[in-house]
């Protein structure tokens, strides 16, 4: 019985099935908002108002021919999409969407989730590297360069709520405002929230940080040689990463998903939608920047911003206010 329950957790509710369905919905919201920002309508005729558009894309890709280039490393080329999908799904599995706790929360799961969210970037680098095409090689090196720019500010930003709550457990951090009543810590951490959202945008490689897959320069970057099923798996992974990243930010900065099952589910939807809407607005409002610009932007603005935020929180903590 216990095994069945765990399998259900992993495969159905906080796990794979829920993440896949909900993340296609998030992608639809993102595409619609992006289209509205550009004065367009976005997907319109696939299901109600185009809500099934991401599903149609994925089904179509699964039904297409799967090309493995002759020059590529066959084993790595085929296995990498699954590794990326598995790590993104596992990251989503540890989030406290289940009665304010994850189904498998433990002390330090914040570090694990951040690590699992960073995995797809490494996988993308390896995917570009092993497909042995000039475009994917350039894209792969850009993935890594960009990783060095946004990863440290992302870490520092996520450190702030952990210090406020005095715990490395995401569930504890999410529970902190509910338990202590200190709701004012949410507006206090606005700097770290901004840094985290921008770094998530860079992590998901979306405009203005879509340098690795800049189609005017490097075709489709690391995914140039991917087609059919493997591309579909990478697309699912990107959607799930968006869900997991936005839910992580919502859990850490926006007060988690407390208040019982229904209220919690409602908050999960509203808060992830809020983060995704922010990401879409950034995507719609900006143009792509250069690789040196993202590195200097991250280290000149994002990292100092998160350090300032960290200092504010540390001083308040030392003063005994929090």
């Amino acid at each position, binding site marked *: 019985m216990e095994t069945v329950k765990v399998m259900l957790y992993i495969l159905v509710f906080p796990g794979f099935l829920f993440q896949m369905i909900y993340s296609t919905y998030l992608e639809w919201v993102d595409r619609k908002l992006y289209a509205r920002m550009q004065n367009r309508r976005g997907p319109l005729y696939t299901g109600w108002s185009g809500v099934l558009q991401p599903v149609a*894309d994925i089904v*179509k890709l699964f039904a297409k021919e799967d090309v493995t280039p002759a020059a590529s490393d066959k084993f790595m080329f085929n296995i990498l999409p699954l590794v990326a999908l598995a790590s993104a799904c596992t990251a989503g599995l540890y989030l406290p969407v289940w009665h304010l706790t994850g189904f498998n929360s433990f002390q330090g799961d914040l570090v694990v989730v951040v690590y699992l969210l960073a995995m797809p970037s490494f996988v993308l680098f390896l995917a570009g590297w092993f497909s042995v095409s000039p475009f994917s090689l350039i894209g792969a090196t850009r993935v890594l360069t960009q990783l060095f720019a946004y990863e440290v500010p992302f870490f520092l930003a996520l450190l702030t709520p952990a210090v406020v709550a005095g715990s490395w457990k995401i569930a504890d951090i999410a529970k902190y405002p509910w338990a202590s009543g200190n709701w004012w810590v949410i507006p206090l951490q606005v700097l770290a929230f901004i840094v985290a959202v921008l770094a998530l945008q860079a992590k998901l490689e979306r405009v203005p940080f879509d340098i690795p897959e800049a189609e005017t320069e490097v075709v489709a970057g690391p995914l140039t040689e991917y087609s059919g099923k493997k591309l579909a798996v990478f697309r699912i992974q990107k959607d799930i990463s968006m869900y997991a990243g936005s839910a992580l930010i919502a859990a850490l900065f926006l007060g988690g998903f407390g208040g019982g099952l229904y209220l919690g589910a409602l908050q999960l939807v509203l808060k992830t939608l809020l983060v995704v809407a922010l990401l879409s607005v950034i995507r719609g409002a900006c143009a792509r920047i250069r690789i040196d610009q993202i590195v200097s932007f991250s280290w000149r603005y994002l990292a100092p911003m998160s350090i300032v935020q960290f200092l504010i929180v540390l001083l308040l903590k030392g003063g005994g206010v929090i």
Partner: protein
Amino acid sequence: MFKKLVTWARVKSPWILHFNSGACNACDIEILASLMPHYDLERFGVMLKASPRHADVLVCSGSVTKQIAPRLKRIYEQMPDPKFVVAVGACACSGGAFRGCYNVLGGIDSVIPVSAYIPGCPVKPEAIIDGVAKLLAQLDKESA
């Protein structure tokens, strides 16, 4: 049932790759215009893809010159099945004004098989949308 689902997905999500095989740029501008907000092909799920590996429909404009012919063939072969080719403009359909030139082979169909011809010099965005819609309707009908 499964086949129906796949056909539905294929009709609803055609990703296109734009290829200029020697056009004067007029048709290309019209193709881009049809992707822009005013006509917004994303309503039908059409997305412009950069890599031939991701694309379903190859949208070609212009007559095929001798120099571009092997490249056009290679791009076509790089696309995964099932794939479709749409010839946009009079030149792409038959060679147009350049038919019989010393350096021109003819229309797109002199190198690769073409599924839909959209005439015009240059074609209107409405004509491109109509052509793509007819191709997709045909696809829907054939597999039903």
